[in-house]
């Protein structure tokens, strides 16, 4: 059976809009605002209906320009690895610090994308991040939290 993915996305959006609309009706407003011409839930309610309307139309109307994606040609493995590395990077950046985590993130991303020129990989990670940190922290005065560099006394 051929499943039209655009219709599936539209259906998901329809369900999402219904949930959004339900949540919009649950927004607690002040008692004196309850019958006001406009309160905190008015605009979201309109948005919920708009979402139902457009996704409903997309579901009902025929879709002659269906986009067909050949999933066999897509590079899921590398994309997933990059996403996982990015999540790990996000999870450790505050605790470990900007310099070390960013450098390791870049180095491992180059590696998993198939790069094996070690010197270039190194230059475009550790020294590159150090230079970028200097630009942000030293030149532009943008604060960068880095417990690792602070612990070894490099950063004040």
């Amino acid at each position, binding site marked *: 059976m051929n499943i039209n993915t*655009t219709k599936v996305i539209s259906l998901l959006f329809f369900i999402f809009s219904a949930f959004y609309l339900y949540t919009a009706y649950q927004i607690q407003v002040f008692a004196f605002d309850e019958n006001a011409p406009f309160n905190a839930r008015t605009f979201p309610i309109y*948005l919920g209906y708009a979402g139902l309307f457009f996704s409903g139309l997309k579901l009902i109307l025929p879709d002659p320009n269906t986009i067909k994606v050949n999933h066999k040609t897509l590079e899921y493995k590398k994309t997933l690895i*990059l996403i996982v590395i990015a999540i790990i990077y996000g999870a450790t950046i505050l605790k470990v610090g900007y310099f070390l985590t960013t450098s390791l993130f870049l180095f491992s991303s180059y590696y998993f994308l198939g790069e094996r020129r070690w010197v270039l990989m190194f230059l475009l990670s550790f020294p590159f991040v150090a230079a970028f940190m200097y630009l942000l922290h030293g030149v532009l005065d943008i604060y960068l939290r880095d417990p690792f560099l602070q612990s070894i006394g490099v950063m004040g």
Partner: protein
Amino acid sequence: MIEGILIGLTTALTLQNILMVMVGCFFGTIIGMLPGLGPMTAIALMIPITYGFDPATGLILMAGVYYGAVFGGSTSSILLNAPGVPGTVATSFDGYPMAQQGKAGKALAIAAWSSFAGGTLSAIYLLFMAPSLSKVSLSFRSPDYFALMILGLTAIAAFSSKGQFLKAMMMVVLGLMLASVGQDSLSDITRFTFNNMNLTDGISFVLVVMATFAMSEALTIILKRNDPTSAAKQVSLTALGSIKINKEERLKMYKTIPRSSIIGFLIGVLPGAGATIASFLAYGMERNVVNDEEKEKFGKGSVNGLSAPETANNAACSGSFVPMLTLGIPGSGTTAVMLGALLGFGVQPGPRLYMTNPEIFWSIIMSMYIGMVILLILNLPLIPYIARILAVPKNYLIPLILFFSITGIYVMSFNNFDIYLMIGIAVVATFMRLYDFPMPPLILAFVLGGLMEENLRRSLLLSNGSWEFLWGRPLTLIILLLTLSIVCWQLFKSLKK
């Protein structure tokens, strides 16, 4: 106005700002040459850098990136028939055949001079039009603004959707929904936060831009196994030949440039239209006005056919600043990103901008002239060298884009949750991109969401909850009828198919 020009020149001609225009143009040219990475990504990646500057400098940098990207997009269009940005697709119609005839250098020179002239003329139109329009727009009331925002969102959905209007409208609604997360601006009641403290202040604009453009474009490149840098590698190997333009060709350009710049500017001013439509319209118009002999050359390396879209797409870039600077309503996804950045600086664009922050208003306009000169110097002699810089493998390019995106969020909030949220939105956006759901309408809607709700609130309160405000003022009614005609036309097209 003279005083304003002087203020603008004083601000734009500081060493720091000239440097920023140069950096912006250079970076924009580089990104513009890479098919798949557009000006919105380039500007989004620049946002963290602008945190360290004042608003005028930050915006000058972003404006430089914008027209640099459009300028750079023409290079890969001409040399490789692979437009770096949609606005330069029409450039390839005559630019690429010219390059195949061994006149690549000449084609680049025609494109560069046309872009320079288009951008400069358009900046002059902007100089005269923006202050007058600002004065006119002071008479706009909340219902007019509300209607204008609906028009802007509908127009961008109609123009950016490539025949998929309903998908684009779904993205508009999604953008507005994302903007509604967090505290209500008037009552401070929290909405859609699900008791998560991280969402109380709403979702950051930078986060959404980074996720839906920079990060999602990077993931899409990997997912689809594209290699945007291969274009640059080929450019760096192409023999350009002479860049001289002879007298006959110059005469043709003298006629084409003024009319194409007017078309480009006017299309740029319209909400949602932008460089792509401007370049196609200018190309079509040029083909109709030239003589039969010249008409025959269109598509085979015509000077007019190359000059017209290049003039128009750069003119449209300047034109798109008009609604943003005068009404506070961006006309395109790219200016929406800039508007969001301005709001982040605490500056409210709108009709009063040129009174409250004249240095920002005028310095952007003045920096455009400087930017055009810099682009001319950059694009002609330096293209092969820029291309060589670009010839880095995508294995390096993609992690660097991800790194810039995550850094942008990190320095803004120092919060893990924001990074996870950005990755989550980027994954969803990447999946939706596969099925041609356009992202610019989402960004524009996200930026306009708060303003739209505010203007609807005022309109409804003033009319005691009645929807009569929609037809109470002729201006509101005209704008809404225009919106309705766009919706009906698009739905009719969908049903006809």
